[in-house]
Each structure stands twice: as C-alpha cells, then as structure tokens.
C-alpha cells in the first residue's frame, strides 16, 4: 500500500479563483499529488502534472549548471544591461514579486507583468473611471444579477460559477441559482451560455457600442433602433437588460479579456466600469475583472505598493514612471529596445507577437520556471524553480484582491523563485555597487 499523506485546505493557484479548499493526497513514494478533492478539471490537471520532475537545476547557454552559477550569470547579464526588462510574475508568490521589483530598482530597468497582456487595459481604465468593487464573498452572498461579459468561465474559471456566483447559495440568495438572474454577453456562444438565462451575442468589435447604449438607456436617454444593425443586439433586448440592471438588488459585471484584447481595449473596460458606477444611482452595482493566472492580482498589488503603479513601470531615472505602450513588454521588445530580459514564470516566446519574440532571440534572456517552455529554450540562463502553491509557500491574491496564504504539499529539491531572485538581487548589488546611477545623473556626471 502506498505511503500517502493529506494536506487539507490547500490552495490551487492555476487561475485567479485561487480556491483554498483543496484536500490534496500526496503519494510519498512517487512524489506526486494523486488526488485533489474539490478541484475543478483545471485544478486536477494542475496538481496532477506538477510532480517533481528530473530537470537540470539550471542551464547556461544549454550547458548544465548549478543554481548558484546561474544566479551569478544572470546577475552579470543584468548588471551589464542598459535597458533591461523584468517580466512575468503572475505565477509566483508576492514574496518573489517584491524581489523582482527590487532588482528592477537596483538595475534601473523596467518591470512589467502579464497584466499588460491581460487586464492591463482595465488597469488603465481604473485610473480613468474608478472601480465600484466587491469581494467574491460579497458577490456570493448578495448578487441577484450576474452579468458575464467577454469571458468564458465555464472553461477558464470553472469554480467561479459554483463556488462564488451562479449556483452558490448565499446569505441573501439562499436558493442559489433560483435567486439569481444570469446574463452572458459574448461574440460567440461558448459553453458558459449553458448557465445563462439571457445570452447576448454581440458582433465582434462592437462591445463598446453596446455598453454605451446601455449607459444611455440606464439614464433614460433614447437609443436609435439601428443599434441592432451596428451591434447585432435588438434595442428591446438592451432595454430589457437595462431595466433588470436598475431593478436588481445587487448587480455584478464580471468581465473578461473579450473586452481588453479587442478593438477599444481600455475604452471597453472604461465603458463597463462607468456603467457599473452609473447604476449605483439606482441600486448597488459592482464590476470585477476576471483574472487569469493564480497570482496576477498579487503582481498588480505588489508592483503598485512598491512603485505606485501596477505594471509597465520604468525605473531608469531612479524613480518610477508608468506608461503603457512605452514601458510595457510587448512594446519594449517589438521596438527592439530591451538589451536583456529577466522572465519569471511566464512564457512570452509562445504567446507574444512575433516581432517581440524575434527580439527575445537577439538578447540575453534569463528564465525562472518549473517547466521547460518556449522561452526557457531560447534563454541564455534557464533556472528551474519549484512550483508555487504546490512546493512553495507564500502569499497570493485572489482576483478580488483578497490575499491568501499557500499551503504547499510536495517538497521540491528546486529553489523557490523568491530565493533565486533574492540571490540575483544581492549579486547584482555587489556587481553594481549599490543602485545604478540614474541615467540623467550619469549624463550630468559626464558633463
């Protein structure tokens, strides 16, 4: 009989739901998690496939090396670079994220997270419009109208429906599904439509127009019936939805990347956030972006509390500057500007635009990742680290900005991202002799 032990109330870090009610059974002989009670299909795969693999501790230019050697090589690359970028960070702990920000500060580089290619536009919209917000606990206990916009939680966040929203029973919605009206808005009919009472199929690239029409209807302004030709949604359907939104007790707009990754980007997110704010003249209404990676929300929080901005931050002048489009990773790489990259727990070589990937091939890249990825394969220095949540403890933020403590189940021989980044930080500081002198001061000193 196999030797096993059980970790109760562990946390799944696959997606932004960060469900913290996992009961994990660990096979101590094979060093694998053999059962993940309460996990969804994605969580089961996450735990099953993150056993302890036999991988080199590090590779430097394809040759096996120790972690210490790789830390030194990485630090030398970063110390020599003039416009380095640090990117990723959404699948690691807050403790590791703060070390990454510290490195960016020392080397005078840019720090950016996967938020910039996720809900970055929503982050821009928050600054313009604000956010009427709530925790998932409030939504679970109070929401009687749920509107999912531009997302497919049935496939991307399965337990968002069952644990926090659609079927969950709450204090003021004791009958769960029966007490809630569910609306889905999307350009295609996804598996999420099966849970919806109302499905609005919008023409591609017309979300903004639908949102703006709803704002007008909520305020009692007239909307021309030709809105249907523009958006694919009949005016009567929009009028009905506006009426439901104004008359519900607690309404929620949960929005996905169907808004941020299409025409309009931050204008779409801004229109939705403004709609939620408008509705508070009539009832209680909130909006939440549905976040993808397990600690992408933590990345926003850590980078914000350390620099004042959530992503796309540059520290080359000795103080933080935030400018999406200038300091965000896709832009810095596609324009061929970065001369080194430190990638933590992300795989831009498999999901960035080609011009950005081509530049990654031209510059020295350092990667920290538990698994082999397209990015680790092009990296000059690839360091194997332990998986957060499975082998590494620490703090992560759920998509509603609630911090949770990890309860790791599987000891790993590989170091944590935090320990590797701390090593790189200390070594870089030695090599540079403190923080790099800001660019403007260097010019002044030369003159």
């Amino acid at each position: 009989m196999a030797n096993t032990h059980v970790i109760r109330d562990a946390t799944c870090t696959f997606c932004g739901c960060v469900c913290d009610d996992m009961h994990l059974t660990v096979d101590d002989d094979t060093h694998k998690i053999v059962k993940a009670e309460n996990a969804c299909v994605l969580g089961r795969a996450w735990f099953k496939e993150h056993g302890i693999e036999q991988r080199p501790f590090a590779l430097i230019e394809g040759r096996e090396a120790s972690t210490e050697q790789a830390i030194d090589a990485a630090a030398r690359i970063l110390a020599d670079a003039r416009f380095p970028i640090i990117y990723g960070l959404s699948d690691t702990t807050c403790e590791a994220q703060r070390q990454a920000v510290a490195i960016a500060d020392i080397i005078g580089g840019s720090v950016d997270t996967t938020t910039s290619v996720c809900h970055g536009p929503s982050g821009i919209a928050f600054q313009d419009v604000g956010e009427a917000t709530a925790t998932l606990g409030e939504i679970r206990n109070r929401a009687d109208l749920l509107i999912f916009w531009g997302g497919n939680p049935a496939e991307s966040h399965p337990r968002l429906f069952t644990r926090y929203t659609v079927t969950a029973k709450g204090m003021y919605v004791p009958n769960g599904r029966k007490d809630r009206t569910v609306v889905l808005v999307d350009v295609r009919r996804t598996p999420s439509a099966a849970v919806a009472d109302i499905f609005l199929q919008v023409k591609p690239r017309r979300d903004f127009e639908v949102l703006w029409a709803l704002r007008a209807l909520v305020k009692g302004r007239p909307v021309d019936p030709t809105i249907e030709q523009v958006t694919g949604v009949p005016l009567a359907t929009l009028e009905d939805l506006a009426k439901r939104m104004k008359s519900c007790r607690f309404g929620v707009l949960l929005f996905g990347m169907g808004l941020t990754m299409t025409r309009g980007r931050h204008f779409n997110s801004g229109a939705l956030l403004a709609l939620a704010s408008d509705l508070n003249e009539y009832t209680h209404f909130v909006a939440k972006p549905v976040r993808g990676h397990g600690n992408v929300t933590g990345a926003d929080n850590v980078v914000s509390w350390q620099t004042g901005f959530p992503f796309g931050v540059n520290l080359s002048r000795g103080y933080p500057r935030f400018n999406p489009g200038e300091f965000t990773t896709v832009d810095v790489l596609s324009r061929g500007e970065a001369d080194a990259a430190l990638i933590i727990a992300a795989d831009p070589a498999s999901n960035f635009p080609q011009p950005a990937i081509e530049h990654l091939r031209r510059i020295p890249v350092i990667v920290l990742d538990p698994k082999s990825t397209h990015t680790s394969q092009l990296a000059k220095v690839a360091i194997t680290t332990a998986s957060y949540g499975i082998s590494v403890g620490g703090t992560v933020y759920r998509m509603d900005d609630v911090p949770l403590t990890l309860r790791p189940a599987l000891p790993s021989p590989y170091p944590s991202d935090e320990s590797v980044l701390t090593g790189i930080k200390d070594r870089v500081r030695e090599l540079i002799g403190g923080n790099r002198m800001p660019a403007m001061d260097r010019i002044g000193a030369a003159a």
Partner: protein
Amino acid sequence: MSETMILIGGRSSAQGTSVCAGKFGTEYVNVSSTLEMNVEDMARLGLKDNDPVRVRSATGEIVARCKGRAAKDLPSGVLFIAYGPLSSVLMDGDTAGSGMPLSKSIDVQIEPVR
C-alpha cells in the same frame, strides 16, 4: 479561394489542462493548432473537419486544422483558436500605445490547403 475573417484567440478547457502537462506535449500542440470555424463557412470553402487551412494576417501565416462549430455558436466570418505558438504568429506587435496587442480581433485571410 480565400476569404477575410476575424480570428479570436482564447482559452479552452482542453488548452488549460494540456498546458499543465507541458507545451511540448502532443495534446497541447493539437489543441493550440485547431481552428474552429462556422460549419457553413467550411462548407462554402469546401472544408471538412481536420482539413488543413492556411491563415494569413498582416504579420504572419500559419497552417491549422479546422474544426466545425454550429452556426448558432460561432457566427459566419468569425474564427476561434486556443492561445498558443500558432496564434502568436498572427499577432501584430503594435499595441496602439496600450501595451496590449490585439489577440481577439485579428483580420485574417483563410484559404484551404490543397
């Protein structure tokens, strides 16, 4: 014969589970190279399930296997592909000053591979 359509990249359940096993695994490679297409569009283009189809954007070109979706689920002229190395080939690096490349709204030319 080629047609202009709109490509939407996104997540799927199979993509999510297969990515855990690794991006070089057969399942992930298959999932991220499957192009979902309205069945009526496929019929017009003379395509059936698993046929190779060339997808060309202003940035790059891929060949994917097509899979039919009912017309009520996926509108005519709209395509879906799970995020992965192939979808990234078609993405433009210009973010219009936002940091975000358009991955859910890519104009593409579709053409059967004969």
